[in-house]
C-alpha cells in the first residue's frame, strides 16, 4: 500500500515564497480534498510535487513510499507512480492523442502494451468517459473544449493507474453532465482502494460526487485547518473569509 508524505514543503516562484511549510500524508485508499481561496497556493502544491520547472523547492520533502520525489526528474516521478491531472492541459500540435497515450503507457509500464490490448483498453476508457472515438486521431488537446480536456485527463488517469493522483481543479469549467462523467471516472479509479487521491478544488460541488475522507483548508501557503467531510459543508455555508482574514 502506497503513501505520499509531504513534509514541511517550502516552494518559491521567482524568489517569492508561495508554500510556507506544508505537511500532508495521503495513504492508498484515502481521498483528501484540499480547499482554499484563489492564490492560497493550491496549484503551486500540485505543480511543485510534479516537478514543474517554474517552481523552486526551497525546503522540505515529498516522499512516495519513502522515495523523495524531489530528487527525481518530472518523468521519473510519473514512473514512480505520481499523476497530476492538470487544470489547463496544454495543446501539443502534431502529436496525436493515440500516439501520446501509447508512449505514456509504454513509459510508465516499462514495456510497450500489446497493440490489440491497448486498443481495447483505450476504447473502453473512452466509452466510459463518453469521449468520441475520433479523438484518438486528433492532436493532443488541440481544439478540445474545456470539458474534453478534463475528460482526457481522467482517461489518462485510468490508463496509467498511478499510486497517487493529484487532481488540480479538475472540476473547474465543467457543466453538470461533464462533472458527473469526470467524477465517475475518478470514482472508478479509486474504487479498488489501492490508490490515494489528492483533490484540489475551490468549490464544494465536486465533493458531492467524489466523497473525500479528509478535508484540508489551505490559506497563505499552508494547511490552516483539517477535518472530515463535514468541514466542506462548513466552507460551503461560510466561505473562506474567516481564513483569508486570519492569514492576512
Amino acid at each position, binding site marked *: 500500500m502506497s503513501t505520499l508524505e509531504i513534509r514541511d514543503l517550502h516552494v518559491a516562484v521567482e524568489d517569492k515564497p508561495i508554500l510556507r511549510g506544508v505537511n500532508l500524508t495521503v495513504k492508498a485508499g484515502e481521498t483528501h480534498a484540499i480547499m482554499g481561496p484563489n492564490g492560497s497556493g493550491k496549484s503551486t502544491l500540485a505543480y511543485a510535487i510534479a516537478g514543474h*520547472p517554474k517552481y523552486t523547492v526551497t525546503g522540505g520533502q515529498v516522499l512516495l513510499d519513502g522515495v523523495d520525489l524531489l530528487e527525481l*526528474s518530472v*518523468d521519473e516521478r*510519473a514512473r514512480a507512480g505520481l499523476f497530476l491531472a492538470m487544470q489547463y492541459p496544454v495543446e*501539443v*500540435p*502534431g502529436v496525436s492523442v493515440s500516439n501520446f497515450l501509447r*508512449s*505514456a503507457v509504454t513509459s*510508465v509500464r516499462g514495456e510497450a502494451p500489446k497493440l490489440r490490448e491497448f486498443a481495447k483498453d483505450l476504447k473502453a476508457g473512452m466509452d466510459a468517459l463518453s469521449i468520441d472515438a475520433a479523438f484518438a486521431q486528433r492532436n493532443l488537446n488541440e481544439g478540445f473544449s474545456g470539458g474534453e480536456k478534463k475528460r482526457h485527463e481522467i482517461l489518462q488517469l485510468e490508463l496509467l493507474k498511478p499510486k497517487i493522483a493529484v487532481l488540480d481543479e479538475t472540476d473547474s469549467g465543467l457543466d453538470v453532465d461533464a462533472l458527473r462523467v469526470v467524477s465517475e471516472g475518478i470514482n472508478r479509479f479509486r474504487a479498488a482502494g489501492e490508490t490515494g487521491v489528492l483533490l484540489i478544488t475551490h468549490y464544494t460541488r465536486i465533493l458531492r460526487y467524489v466523497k473525500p475522507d479528509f478535508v484540508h483548508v489551505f490559506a497563505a501557503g499552508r494547511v490552516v485547518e483539517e477535518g472530515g467531510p463535514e468541514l466542506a459543508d462548513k466552507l460551503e455555508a461560510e466561505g473562506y473569509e474567516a481564513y483569508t482574514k486570519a492569514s492576512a
Partner: protein
Amino acid sequence: MGLATTPSSTLQRKSSYELDDFAVPTGREEEWRFTPLSRLKGLHDGTAAGSGAVSVAVDAAPEATVETVGREDERIGKAYVPADRVSAQAYAAFEKATVVTVPREAVASKPTVITFTGGGGTAYGHTVVRLEPMAEAVVVLDHRGSAVYADNVEFVVGDGATLKVVSLQDWADDAVHVSHHHAQLGKDATFRGFVVTLGGDVVRLSPSVSYTAPGGDADLTGLYFVDAGQHLEHRLLVDHSQPNCKSNVVYKGALQGDDAHAVWIGDVIIRVEAEGTDTYELNRNLLLTDGARADSVPNLEILTGEVAGAGHASASGRLDDEHIFYLQARGIPFDEARRLVIRGFFGQLIEKIEVEELRDRVMAKVEAELAG
C-alpha cells in the same frame, strides 16, 4: 497617387543570361546579405573553375525520355533567365544539360529519380524537366556526396499538366550548393515542389514560380534541419502575373548547435493583372539550442485590389517548456518527449512527400538528426 504598378522586389530587378551583367557580390546587396560569400569557394566571383565533378544519373519512368544535351539545345533557358550572379555563372559554365520530357497526356507510372553525386571539386549543371500538356509525373532530385556545385533547374509544366518534385539536399558536410529551381506553369497546370535540405556546409536554394496563363496552382513545401556551423538558405519567389492562380508556401526548419544558421526569404508578388490570386506563405523555425540563428523574411507585394486571398506568417521560437513538461508528467523521458514534439512539428509536412520510400528516408534522417 495611385497604387504602384511595378514590383519593387529585389529578386526581380534584373535577369540575364550574361555573366557580366551581374557584378561580383560584396555581401552588402539585399539578395546576398545573409549568405557567407567567403564559404562559397569562389562560385560568386568567377574563381571556381568547373571540373565536372558531379555525376548525374537518371532512373526514369518508362513514359519519360531522358537526354543529355549540349549548351546549344534550344530547350535550355526557355523558362528561366538567371536572376543573380551565381545563377548566371552556372548558366555560363555548364557543359552538358539533362533534359527529361514527359509527352503529352502521358501519366508516368513511377517516379523519375535524378541522382546528383558529388565526387569532390567544383561543377556547374543545368537540368530541364518538361511536362507536355496533360502529362503527370513525379520527379526526385537527389543530391549527395561532396562538391562545390552551382546549377539551374527549369520545370516547364504544360497546360493542364501536374508535376510533383521532391528535391533532397542530402550532401556531405563540406558541400557547397547554390541552386535555382524555377517552375513555369501553363494554363491550369499544377506544381507541387517539396524541398528537404539537411546536408552541406552552405546550401542556398532559390525556388521560384511563374505563370504563363490563368489557373495555375503551385504548392511549395520545405523542410530543413540545420546543425552546428551549417548555413542553409531558401529564397522563395512566386510571381503572380496571371489572373486566378494559386500559390501556397510552407517551410519549416529546426536548428541546433553553435552557428547553425537558417535563412528563409519568401517573396510573393501579385501584379496588377493577377486578379483573383489566392496565396499564402508560412515559415516556422524551431531553435533547439542556444547559438543557432534563424532569419525569416516574408514579403508580400500586392499591386491589385482584386485578390481572392493573400497572407503570410513567420515565427521562430524554442521548444515549448510546457509541451515537454506535459509529456514528461506522463512518464515520457525528456529525450523522447523532445522527439515527439519535433516529430509533431515536422510530421504533417513529411506526410505530404509523394514518394513513400522517400518519406521514410526523410523521416529516418530527421530521427538521426534528433538522435545526434
